[in-house]
Each structure stands twice: as structure tokens, then as C-alpha cells.
């Protein structure tokens, strides 16, 4: 890992300065940011003692939106402009949201393409933009606490998030001006925080019931390796659903119709949440609620009744628990411990039911609200390069199978769920018409056999296939899922070797242009200048590229490159250095592309050498160790 240290050729690498990095838990109900300071991962507060930032954004008729309202009064007074639980809409289409819509007061607007928008006094906003506001608030908090700009962040997502939901999260980060080092699965993040803390070995189950999502992951910890064996869950099940069953009970008991106004319904939800929180410690909870007709309703919810109400919701988490054991190919007795994550696991009834299922006492002595952010911070600290020599290794999996549409609306699975990532699969296709130069590949995610029962991810339009007779062109399409769990597709015609162009039409996501557009809009609001920001970004990237190449050259340039090869790289490096401080971003971009090309062969040799050395027990960069 000394790759990330900065050193000049010929001199021992000096200790790299501490780079500012953070872990972000972007939650349905609350969000957190954490960072490693003086070897300790800590959550960063708002300066007034608060650590949790409520994931609530209130749009105002003028001025910037306000993020993280703790006062539920706003939700009550201004329900249409106060957006909460936006994570539930990330990467979702109009159809999905229609199913959820009656649970939320907002007015949804159908956009020209997949992603719906929420209408507010300040305009229509996609869930990605709303999430970006939360991320911006966390970014500001972290930069104030750390005293400068962040170099990179790790953002956590539910393990069961599909590709569209992950991409939406990454897009939100881009809009917020954050460099994402990695999207990390929430239970895996918890495992890092927990495992490193306890030095635990063996097979663990991480049960993560958050505000709006549920994950169950089975991990094996062994000598610094965190290997996810399988993961399952429900990305639309969480504490919100518990609140809802209590709210329904309240409406029923208080004799309030479901047609009451939004403010009233929001208030009922608020009382439901309070009751849930109180009943983790008390045996009963007293309500005093003003009905729409002005009368006061008073009532009481006993813990036994509460438990009867919520048991069906918790029971829904047990089916994925069963499946995950099967997928991990282990017996419930193989599990040495169950770690509870997420605020909803504070409920004693949840702990009891989960404990009974796994035949063991759940582990609850870590703060279930903070553990995910802490794990993300530890990972961010490593990824950004603050811990050279650290040999922690994370092997995660893809949560849902990836497939393509075939004849008759059927799915052909390409990558089964719980395959370790990164993963690539190549598939051959041929043309069915003479002279055909384009074809469309529809990629879906899910376990069902019919395309219509799975989630449509995107249509990839392959263009520029050399015209040939039907069946003569052989197009090899490569599907790649990277370490963030994100899919990319490339294609090549085999007989001519022509790389075909690909146009991606995401089913529910945003196109590059849309993001660019939003970026521009958001900057106009902040009276910033797009071109200055873009130039600055390229300058930072160039700086980084120069640094990493210099380090790589110092490490094993001598060993792996001939004099001519070295000269070529040095030239490309010098060319980039010559333009990096100028104001022509296109020139910087071009020089970076050239440097990228000049170092392709070197990168491959370094990779081979590092594998070779790993197997023969030597480190690539022994001299720096």
C-alpha cells in the first residue's frame, strides 16, 4: 500500500501527510459522518452536541434548503416542502413510487424519463438532488471539523440496494461535490467497525434493520479478511414500517379517518415514532392527540399490544435470514454471533425474535446508530492512503442476480447473486439481419424468470457494428461489476476487433447530461462559476495523477521499464506538469489522457509483478517497507 505514499525517486518515502477522508452513513431517517482522527474513528457532531443529522430537507420559496430539522413542527406545518425518508425513492421509478406514494404527502411529478421528481415551492427535485443536499450538509460538517477540503469519502448503502439505487447514491455524491472512494455495504461497514474492535474470528451474521431498509449478511472474519459469504434483505422494509402500523392503530383508536389532512397524518406518524422509542424501555405509553375536529383524544399503548402489532413486520425479516443461510451454504449452528445494527434493533421484541432464530444472544453493546459510519470512516482512512501497510481485505458480493432479456420476455442469468465482486462475464451475441449495425441489450436485476418481474436497469444500445451478413458478426459483450457493485458494459465485434459504441439508457437513473445540468443549476444558485469549478477539479485530478505515477515509478520503474519506455512516460508526465496550473481544462484533460495511455503497459506489469511477489512472499515495494 505504499503506492499511496509520496516520495521522490531515490529517497526514502517520507511519512505522507494525513489526508482528509470521511465515512458517510446516508440513512433513511438519520445520517452521520465520521472520520479517523488520531487513530480513532469518531462521528463528527454539529457543534451543539448532536451527532445524528435527521435526513430531512425543507425547501423554501427563496434561499437554500434547510437540512436536518430536528423540530418536527416543520413537517407538521409544511409537509409538502419538507422531504423525509428520501432514501426510499432513490433509483426508483414512477411505478414503484406510486405504490409508496400514499404513505407520503409529497406531490410527485413524472419526468420525461424514468426518474420522478418531487414538487416543492422551490421547484421540482429528484430524490438524487434531495440526497445531495443532505450530503452537502455532512460535507460542510466534516470540512469544518477536519479543517479543510475532503479528499475522498466512503458512502454506505444497504447491501440489498440494486444497481439503480447505488448509481443514484453515487450521482448524489457527485452533485454534492464529493469524491467517492467506495460505496460500502452497510452491514460490511458495521462488520469492520465491530470486527476490528473485537478482534473476532469466525462466521458472523449482521442483522441490520434501519429506518427504511433491511439487510442480513453472513460474513467470515479471518486474519484481517472480511469475506461476505452471502447477503439478503428487503430494500423497502424498516423502522418506517413499524411506525406505520402503530400510526394505523392510532388512527383507528382515535377515530381519525385516513382522509385527514397531511399535517395531521404527519403528526400521527410523529406520535407513533415517539411511542416506539418509549416502548423499548417502558411497559406502556400514553398519548394525547388533537383530532381534526379539535377534540382531544387520550389513550394508552401497552407493550404487549405494541409487540403484537409489530411482530408481523419483524417476521418479514426472517425469510431473508433463512435464505441467506442457504446461500452461504452454512447451518445456523455455524454462526458464532449475531451483530445488531440500525436504530430499530433497539426494540427488545426484535432482539428476542432474531436471537430465537439464530439460536444465540444478539450482540448489542455497540451503538447501532453509529457503527456503520464508524466502519465507513475506517475504510475511507485506508482507501485514501493514510494507513500504508494495512492488510485489511474486504471481499463483498453482488446482492441480486444480473441478467439479460432473451426471447419471449425471459431472463438469462449472467451473474448469480452472492458472486464475489469485482466480477466480469462475457457473452457472445450475433446479428440476425444482413447489414445490421446496432442492437439493444436489456439488462435486468433480480431472481425471477420473467423480465417483467425483475428490475429493469438499463438498455445498452450497441452501435457501429461492422455491417455483415446475418449471423456473421460476433459481438462479445462484457458485463463488469466493480467493487462498488456498479455495472458497466463494453462490447467488441470479434472478427474485426471493432470496439462498438454503447449508449446507455438507464431505466430509472439520470443520464450524464442530466447530472451535468443539475450541477450547473445548483451552482447558479450558489452564485458559483461552473467553468472555474471544472478547471479546479481537473487541476486536482492532474495533481493526483502526477503524484501516483511518480510514486509508482519510484517504486519499480527501474525494474519494470526499459529506458525508452521510461522516457515515454516521463515525457507524458512533463507534458501534464506543463499545463496543470494553466486555465485550459481541455489541455489538462488531453494531457491526462495521454499520460493514461503512456502508462497502460506499466500498470499491467506492476499488477503482474505484485501478484508474482504476493505468491512468492515478497512485497513489490520492499525498499519502502
Amino acid at each position, binding site marked *: 500500500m505504499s503506492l499511496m505514499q509520496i516520495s521522490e525517486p531515490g529517497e526514502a518515502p517520507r511519512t505522507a501527510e494525513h489526508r482528509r477522508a470521511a465515512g458517510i452513513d446516508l440513512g433513511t431517517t438519520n445520517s452521520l459522518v465520521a472520520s479517523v482522527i488520531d487513530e480513532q474513528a469518531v462521528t463528527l457532531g454539529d457543534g451543539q452536541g448532536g451527532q445524528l443529522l435527521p435526513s430531512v430537507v425543507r425547501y423554501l420559496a427563496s434561499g437554500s434548503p434547510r437540512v436536518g430539522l430536528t423540530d418536527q413542527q416543520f413537517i407538521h406545518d409544511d409537509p409538502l416542502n419538507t422531504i423525509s425518508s428520501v432514501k426510499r425513492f432513490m433509483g426508483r421509478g414512477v411505478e414503484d413510487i406510486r405504490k409508496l406514494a400514499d404513505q407520503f404527502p409529497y406531490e410527485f411529478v413524472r419526468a420525461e424519463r424514468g426518474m420522478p421528481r418531487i414538487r416543492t415551492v422551490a421547484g421540482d427535485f429528484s430524490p438524487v438532488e434531495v440526497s445531495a443536499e443532505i450530503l452537502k450538509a455532512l460535507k460542510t460538517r466534516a470540512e469544518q471539523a477536519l479543517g479543510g477540503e475532503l479528499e475522498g469519502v466512503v458512502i454506505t448503502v444497504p447491501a440489498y440496494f440494486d444497481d439503480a439505487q447505488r448509481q443514484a447514491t453515487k450521482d448524489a455524491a457527485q452533485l454534492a461535490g464529493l469524491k467517492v472512494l467506495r460505496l460500502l455495504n452497510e452491514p460490511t461497514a458495521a462488520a469492520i467497525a465491530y470486527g476490528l474492535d473485537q478482534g473476532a474470528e469466525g462466521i458472523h451474521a449482521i442483522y441490520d434493520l434501519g429506518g427504511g431498509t433491511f439487510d442480513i449478511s453472513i460474513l467470515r472474519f479471518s486474519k484481517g479478511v472480511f469475506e461476505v459469504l452471502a447477503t439478503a434483505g428487503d430494500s423497502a422494509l424498516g423502522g418506517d414500517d413499524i411506525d406505520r402500523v402503530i400510526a394505523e392503530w392510532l388512527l383507528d383508536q382515535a377515530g381519525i379517518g385516513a382522509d385527514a389532512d397531511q399535517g395531521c397524518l404527519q403528526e400521527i406518524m410523529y406520535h407513533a415514532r415517539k411511542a416506539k422509542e418509549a416502548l423499548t424501555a417502558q411497559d406502556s405509553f400514553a398519548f394525547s392527540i388533537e383530532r381534526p375536529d379539535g377534540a382531544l383524544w387520550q389513550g394508552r399503548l401497552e407493550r404487549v399490544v405494541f409487540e403484537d402489532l409489530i411482530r408481523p413486520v419483524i417476521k418479514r425479516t426472517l425469510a431473508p435470514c433463512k435464505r441467506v443461510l442457504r446461500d452461504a451454504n452454512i447451518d445456523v449452528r455455524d454462526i458464532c454471533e449475531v451483530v445488531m445494527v440500525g436504530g430499530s434493533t433497539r426494540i427488545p421484541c426484535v432482539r428476542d425474535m432474531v436471537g430465537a432464530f439464530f439460536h444465540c444472544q444478539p450482540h448489542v453493546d455497540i451503538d447501532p446508530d453509529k457503527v456503520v459510519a464508524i466502519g465507513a470512516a475506517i475504510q475511507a482512512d485506508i*482507501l485514501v492512503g493514510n494507513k500504508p501497510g494495512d492488510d485489511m*481485505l474486504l471481499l463483498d458480493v453482488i446482492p441480486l442476480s444480473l441478467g439479460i432479456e432473451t426471447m419471449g420476455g425471459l431472463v438469462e442469468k449472467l451473474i448469480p447473486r452472492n458472486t464475489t465482486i469485482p466480477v*466480469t462475464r462475457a457473452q457472445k451475441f450475433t446479428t440476425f439481419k444482413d447489414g445490421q449495425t446496432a442492437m439493444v441489450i436489456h439488462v435486468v436485476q433480480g431472481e425471477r424468470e420473467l423480465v417483467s418481474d425483475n428490475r429493469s436497469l438499463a438498455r445498452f444500445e450497441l452501435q457501429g457494428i461492422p455491417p455483415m451478413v446475418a449471423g456473421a458478426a460476433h459481438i462479445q459483450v462484457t458485463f463488469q461489476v466493480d*467493487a462498488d457493485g456498479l455495472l458497466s458494459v463494453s462490447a467488441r465485434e470479434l472478427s474485426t476487433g471493432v470496439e462498438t459504441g454503447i449508449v446507455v439508457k438507464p431505466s430509472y437513473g439520470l443520464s450524464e447530461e442530466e447530472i451535468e445540468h443539475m450541477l450547473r443549476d445548483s451552482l447558479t444558485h450558489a452564485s458559483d462559476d461552473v467553468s472555474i469549478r471544472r478547471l479546479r477539479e481537473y487541476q486536482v485530478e492532474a495533481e493526483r495523477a502526477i503524484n*501516483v505515477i511518480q510514486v509508482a515509478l519510484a517504486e519499480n520503474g527501474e525494474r519494470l521499464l526499459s529506458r525508452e519506455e521510461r522516457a515515454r512516460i516521463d515525457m507524458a508526465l512533463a507534458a501534464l506538469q506543463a499545463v496543470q496550473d494553466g486555465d485550459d481544462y481541455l489541455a489538462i484533460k488531453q494531457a491526462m489522457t495521454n499520460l493514461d495511455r503512456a502508462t497502460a503497459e506499466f500498470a499491467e506489469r*506492476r499488477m503482474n509483478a505484485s501478484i508474482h*511477489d504476493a*505468491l512468492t512472499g515478497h512485497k513489490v515495494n520492499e525498499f519502502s517497507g
Partner: protein
Amino acid sequence: MQSPLTKDFFSLFGLPVAFHLADEELTARYREMQSAVHPDRYANAALQEQRMSIQVAAHINEAYQTLKNPLSRIRYILELKGVDLQDREAAPDPDFLMRQIEWRETMEEIQAAGGPGSRLADLVKEITAYIAELQEKIAGELEDETLLSAALRHYNELQYFYRLLEEARDIGDMVD
């Protein structure tokens, strides 16, 4: 130094081509290699290295998964030895046909009875034992160039029994 992307999966891990392999050794080497190439090691590296890291890590994952699972390991060895997997010439073993019918019937009876109980557990045990036996047979056949067609035939049978095992477990899950 040969690129890891072009090596066969066995030599990638420095192991001999054979059905029997030391699981712990495979896993240990897999982890050592991933420690060197995983994208997390290159999160802050040059773009070329990031891309290369994804490719190589994915390749190592595929190699590991292929060799770890006995069914895919056999298939891979057959491919390495140039056996045409589509070759259906080989007549099925009478013993195979008999067992197939017998176990299928037992399973239908258990399912119809609604409660799998100990009969299902016994069936799973029996199939598992048979699979182990068949794999031993295949392991030997793969060592002998003249027995490769027998190996292919037994491999096809093996696939069938693994599926049967899955179905038996499905019944178990449904009743639980």
C-alpha cells in the same frame, strides 16, 4: 512474467491440474493474491491501475470460484483437456438411471406426505454420499487420458445429482 489474465486457473494459483486440491492452500493463495490486486488497494491510484485492478481481481475471483466448487472444477479440467462438453454420445450408466428413478420417487413420496422428517434427512445423506463416491471416480478418470469420455459421462450425471440435492433442500426449506 506472464499476465495473470492469460494463465489457466490452476497455474494462476500455482497448483497442479487435478480434481483433488488442498482447500486451505487454494484459499490462502486466493487471499494473498486479492490482497495484492484488489481495487481497494488502488482506490487512490492512477486510472490505468484502477481499471487493471478491477480486471485482474475479477479474473482471480472467477478462478477461485471455479476451482472451489467441485462441479465447476471438473468442468474446467475437462475443458482444459480439450473434451467437447456437448458430446452426448456416451450412453448413460444403468446404475445412474436406476438411482435417478428411485430417488425421484422417494422425493415425491416425501413431498406428498407433507412432512419430510427423518426420511428427507436420510435421502439428503444418501445423495451426498453418492456424490462423493462419484467424484472420487471422476477424479481418477481425469488422470487417465483414455478415460476422459467416462469422466464426461459421470460429470453429466453428477450435475443431475447436485440438482436433485438442491430440490431436496428446497422441500426441507418449505416445510420448516
